[in-house]
């Protein structure tokens, strides 16, 4: 006899929250805040905006969780709230903002891809980390909010196309075409840092 499918712990936490147990929602906040912070921060390039938006995302999710029927996973649902709220925020914010970037974790020095990128004769090697971070964020900010969302979820957070399409409510083909277009734009902005 086959083993029963593992039960998603989120389902129980959501049910408890719907029954009025606020501590169950706290567990969901603790579980999802690092991942959602990464999503919102990489779309806004501003720590304070990311913090305020993330607070609003969880507040909205808490207010509307009674209407959540579990047709999608809680993961997809909360991510779609975060992406939609961030896109709306970016459209309102326009060009009036300043970057306020988080520090780069020094563990980056041990990252396989970073080592590869800073290998001999690579332009990344000559640039200091701060400069590279600044340039990456400037390049991201030149993309439209919708393209930035796809790049953040796919390239930075490593989500599969199918998951991104569910979160954004668009087809996988549209996800791929947005990625292609965004990469082509970023290629021009990041030319000086690419391997020769």
């Amino acid at each position, binding site marked *: 006899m086959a083993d029963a499918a593992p039960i998603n712990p989120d389902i129980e936490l959501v049910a408890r929250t719907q029954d009025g147990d606020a501590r169950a929602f706290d567990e969901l906040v603790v579980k999802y805040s690092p991942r959602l912070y990464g999503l919102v921060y990489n779309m806004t390039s501003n720590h304070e905006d990311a913090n305020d938006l993330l*607070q609003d995302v969880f507040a909205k999710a808490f207010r509307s969780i*009674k209407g959540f029927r579990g047709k999608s996973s809680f993961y997809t649902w909360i991510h779609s709230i975060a992406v939609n709220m961030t896109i709306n925020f970016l459209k309102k914010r326009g060009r009036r903002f300043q970057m306020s970037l*988080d520090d780069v974790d020094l563990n980056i020095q041990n990252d396989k891809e970073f080592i590869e990128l800073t290998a001999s004769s690579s332009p990344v090697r000559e640039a200091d980390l701060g400069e590279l*971070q600044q340039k*990456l964020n400037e390049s991201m900010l030149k993309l439209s909010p919708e393209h930035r969302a796809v790049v953040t979820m796919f*390239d*930075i957070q490593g989500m599969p196309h199918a998951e991104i399409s569910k979160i954004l409510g668009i087809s996988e083909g549209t996800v791929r075409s947005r990625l292609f277009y965004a990469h*082509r734009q970023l290629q021009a902005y990041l030319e000086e840092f*690419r391997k020769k």
Partner: protein
Amino acid sequence: MKQEDNDDISKLLRLKRFEQPPPEYFENFLQEFQHRQRAQMLRDPAWRIAIDRLWAFFGEQMPARIGYGLASTAVLVAAAITSFHILEVQPVAEVATTAAPGPAPAAQTASLDFDSQVQLPNLPAMTHTASFSQPRYVMDARPVSYELPSSF
């Protein structure tokens, strides 16, 4: 765009994973959330909470295009109902103003004395179609439009 270029861009972007908030940030995040949540519960009106719940109920899993389709259909139905309503109501309002029942006020009756000198021909009963026909100008008790062109 070459696959190699694409991979280089992806590798560069992946370095952004190392941008991290201060270590204590996530420890304080929950406390800040609870504090803000309590403060907001005192401010938020009930209708806003109801709208959020409706959004969650209908918005979940509903692809954007279905949402747009439903919204467009709703707008078209509303427009159709409104235009039918306007077409039906307008002629009734015209008839009501031309044939208002009941006695006129005394002052108005006095000012309409010329009615007795003008002999109107036996016109057909006023209908919706008649109200849209050409206007008739009355001269010497005969509508001008009844005169033959040669009589001028």
